[in-house]
């Protein structure tokens, strides 16, 4: 009896170790959507930049990828909801306090613009009058999509942060930067894969800037949130985020150093895309992990309470 191990002294109490807040019921569809949404946004911006600066390869790749990513996003969302008409139900309401409602409108608007832009890529294949009409519509759509893209890339950060999931909510100041950076980097990745070296310079710069934003944000998320940073550094989420960081670094380095090689560029682009995917999954799973362990609900709230009591005493 005496030599049986005692309970390790826990510094908090809970109800049989059960979670207090409920982890999001979303499956990996939503993590994937975070990636495809960001990819769509980054690609759309790439397309607009490419078009504006006369880089047709970037334009084409950007437009097509944006639409492709958009279609994938819609698939993931519908899959998560279970039935297609449920997505349509979202459009009956516009609710400012619901990031998801806002996001639905952003996604729908972006979708219309990006769709027009992508379809315009097919203009040469169409009968002339229609093709002629499509050109300007596509251009207008392309710029409108680019203007909407930052919202599409960052609203998902608000979507996650506006929950009781401890490590998501605590990360709300930096999460938009992680997602924005990740979106840029993935857009840049598309550029690196699709564009010939002569067109790819902006994509390389986009990769560097995006990576910087993403790395800065992720660093803050992983280090400045006290115990709530922990879920992002441990287990699968930790592995994913570390993989994301490594891939980002490799991708960025490749983008900078391999500018003459199409193969290295493409590999770098692929690394950036994979990095973005890993980062999104890491952030997603880190939040879920923080909800599943009551420690992450109790300890920070206890600290907050203690602080308030301290202030109360002093004040």
């Amino acid at each position, binding site marked *: 009896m005496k030599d049986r191990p005692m309970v390790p002294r826990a510094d908090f*109490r809970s109800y049989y170790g059960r979670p207090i807040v*409920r982890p999001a*019921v979303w499956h990996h569809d939503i993590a994937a959507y975070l990636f495809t949404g960001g990819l769509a946004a980054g690609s759309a911006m790439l397309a607009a*930049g490419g078009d504006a*600066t006369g880089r047709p390869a970037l334009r084409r790749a950007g437009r097509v990828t944006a639409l492709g990513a958009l279609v994938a996003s819609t698939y993931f969302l519908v899959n998560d909801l279970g039935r297609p008409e449920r997505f349509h139900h979202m459009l009956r309401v516009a609710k400012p306090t619901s990031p998801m409602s806002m996001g639905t409108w952003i996604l729908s608007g972006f979708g219309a613009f990006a769709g027009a832009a992508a379809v315009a890529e097919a203009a040469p294949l169409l009968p002339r009058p229609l093709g002629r009409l499509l050109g300007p519509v596509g251009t207008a759509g392309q710029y409108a999509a680019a203007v909407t893209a*930052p919202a599409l890339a960052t609203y998902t950060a608000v979507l996650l942060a506006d929950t009781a999931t401890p490590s998501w909510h605590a990360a709300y100041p930096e999460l*938009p930067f992680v997602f*924005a950076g990740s979106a840029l980097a993935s857009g840049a990745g598309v550029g690196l894969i699709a564009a010939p070296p002569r067109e790819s310079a902006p994509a390389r710069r986009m990769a560097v800037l995006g990576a910087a934003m993403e790395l800065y944000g992720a660093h803050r998320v992983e280090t400045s949130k006290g115990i709530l940073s922990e879920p992002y550094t441990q287990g699968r989420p930790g592995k994913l985020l570390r993989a994301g960081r490594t891939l980002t670094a490799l991708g960025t380095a490749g983008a900078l150093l391999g500018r003459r090689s199409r193969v290295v560029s493409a590999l770098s682009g692929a690394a950036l895309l994979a990095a973005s995917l890993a980062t999104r999954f890491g952030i997603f799973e880190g939040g879920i992990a923080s909800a599943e362990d009551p420690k992450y*609900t109790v300890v920070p709230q206890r600290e907050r309470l203690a602080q308030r009591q301290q202030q109360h005493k002093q004040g």
Partner: protein
Amino acid sequence: MGANSLYGPLDPAPDAGYVDAPPRMGFFTDTSVCIGCKACEVACKEWNGVPDDGFNLLGHSYDNTGGLSANSWRAVAFIEQPAVVPAGPVDALAEAAAGRSDALAEAGCGGAGTTREPEFLGMPGTDLPGRTPDAPRTDFRWLMMSNVCKHCTHAGCLDVCPTGALFRTEFGTVVVQEDVCNGCGYCIPACPYGVIDQRKDDGRAWKCTLCYDRIGDGLTPACAQACPTQSIQYGELDELRARAAERVEKLKDQGARLYGHDPDDGVGGDGAFFLLLDEPEVYGLPPDPIVATRDLPAMWKRAGLAGLAMAAAVAVSFLGGRR
């Protein structure tokens, strides 16, 4: 939207646009008189046609419900707290049981009030409630609490619902319209109490309605009606708060405290609040919940900033540097 629409003290029904709203109604759950009979759970399911939640022996004392869920809108928590002494554990009974009965005699073995160090029972979870000796007690305690949706003044679930399926009633309560809910699941992580939940078969969100279909007819919600000891009290929130204040004063020396009664707390006060005999987390409640949408404006600001940074980065990428 009013000044406190996202955060701070508020009467939610008028804020939601009800003109001449009736008084705000709610629950006061006094855990000091809960006998753990679970009549609330059964009455709730009978009235609301909630399906059973599976036949699983959890080993969490007598709690085989395992907290609130889509299929359990009332759930009684059971917490066994052995007597604990701050230092110098002498497990005389255990030693005696192992054949060293002299230790038993020396320690004055007896029934009630025997104090000893808690030991690990191999129960799930490494941090059994009550087994952290931060609250020395000479008596064994068995705490029971019927948990329920808090019907927050600032309800995270309602705020984030993208379809309007969750709405504020004229009584200030929060209800899901099952025919509007589209199963996005956003409300579920948004609840700071982990109350609202998705039903696996249809994907929709379900939770306590505070018997909206009863209180509109002047009836008491099923759980409060069934509660034999008035542990669950239903009424006008103001009156319940006054009653609770008296009750907590009376039970102060038993460690009684109110939970969710304060309009200045992180959710603007709960429509369903509690008298507890230990810390909230011991019952599976968050010690200091806040509604996430408190920070929504700040979040959008940060998102906007990140978006601008993104735009700037693209501009720099394309316009700056060498071609």
